[in-house]
């Protein structure tokens, strides 16, 4: 049962992905997943082939679930912020 995602669904998934990535307390992981979200959704939006789009859609959902879980884990075990991070900006 694979239905091609609509534009709204696509954007909503992207927003959720960004929100979960932002929940990481670890600076490097947060930055990485934000960067990855941008590039992979940009590539995803260019897909025309419905089979490829399905694959992307499934994969993105799986990754979103991983991000949600791991963002919580990241909030449970926190460390000092890095020397490049402004203090207090992202203290969960």
């Amino acid at each position, binding site marked *: 049962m694979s239905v091609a995602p609509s534009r709204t669904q696509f954007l909503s998934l992207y927003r959720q992905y960004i929100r979960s990535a932002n929940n990481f307390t670890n600076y490097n992981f947060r930055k990485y997943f934000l960067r990855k979200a941008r590039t992979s959704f940009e590539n995803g939006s260019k897909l025309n082939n419905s089979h490829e789009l399905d694959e992307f859609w499934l994969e993105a959902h799986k990754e979103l679930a991983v991000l949600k879980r*791991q963002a919580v884990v990241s909030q449970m075990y926190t460390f000092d*912020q890095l020397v490049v991070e402004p*203090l207090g900006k992202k203290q969960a």
Partner: protein
Amino acid sequence: MLRAIARSNVFKQHRASFKAARFYATAKVALDAKLETPTDVEGAAQELAQVRATTEQVKASTSNALKHAFQEKTGFGTRPIYLDMQATTPTDPRVLDTMLKFYTGLYGNPHSNTHSYGWETHKEVESARQHIANVINADVKEIIFTSGATESNNMALKGVARFYKKTKNHIITTRTEHKCVLEAARSLKIDDIDVTFLNVDDQGMVNLEELESAIRPETCLVSVMAVNNEIGVMQPIKEIGKICRKHKVFFHTDAAQAYGKVPIDVNDMNIDLLSISSHKIYGPMGIGAIFVRRRPRVRLDPIISGGGQERGLRSGTLAPSLVSGFGEAARLMQKEYAADTAHIRRLSEKLTRGLLSIEHTSLNGSPEHHYPGCVNVSFAYVEGESLLMALRDIALSSGSACTSASLEPSYVLHALGKDDALAHSSIRFGIGRFTTDEEIDYVIKAITERVAFLRELSPLWEMVKEGIDLNSIEWSGH
């Protein structure tokens, strides 16, 4: 009756609201629970900085040196930037996510085939093995799990040499190998096995003609590392593989730093044995693997004997959590290869450009045959260890983690023909998947400032500035 209906309605409503809020339930728990912060230097450092900033007495006594040792601007965190990716890499959250289920429910022994607990973990282990084999285009049966690249290297060198020692008693390796290969080779001398250590040129490259002429009829193994851990030089693995196949000698390569980061195809490159480490590819520590070719078959004497797991080459129960984390890390290396390579290359170019724009600095190792994630730079007229001390806000190393405890200069840079002073003043920068642009900018700025500061202190630098050739000076001996 009425009451019962009302109750069930209430229950339903309650359930609905519970369902809606379910996503955030875990997050709430996380916020309520007492957070563990293993590193809490932040508070202490801020206090200290505030005291220093306010007390006149301290202000007067604090020398310039302390101010330059590390940045003390409040308003920023205190944890150092991690730039030592050759030593180890942070575990990817996606890897941790696949590992957690083995600690919470999937605890079967993957070798038990009498119950489903064993089957579950066995399935996971085999799918991980497939992911690991895919990266180097190997067959799934050719991957043997070990405890890490050190064990893999030992297994390759000692295993092959001991198995064939009645007919062949010579192995060839290079001077820039990792310590575990050099030591394993040296320990084989007890078994009357002759070892040739090949020299490298000033770029860190092996001379192929020299290698070919070193092969004798009794040579059984050539071991050359794919990417050097200190200078990031890539050896011509494909050409070496061709030479070894021509002379019917087994070819082992230590690919701990190369696996998943540079393209490797064991069939195309004629590699017979290949060592892999999990914690260099954002996987868990404590696991690695060795690729052992089946056709033509490479035979080895196992170091560890026991129940005959892993084709009898490495007995002992596998750790499914580590294996599966390793497998996921390998899968991600393959999936993210293009994105990671582009990102690392971009940052590496930025860093190299920034550092080499400081005068009297040089890049160690060949710039063409080079893995961009490892940048080794020498800062002349600065002592490497004192620079590292001055760079407390950046996690760096002057060479391999194994030798960082001793103050001896790197043997790899020695092999390249660098003198002691330059070998002492070189620093290795490791860039990885999680390194960011801001970090690189910070590092370039910090290094530029502090190298300038340390040079101001150095009398040698003064002489260089005046245009005196240091080599022409006749130092009065004592």
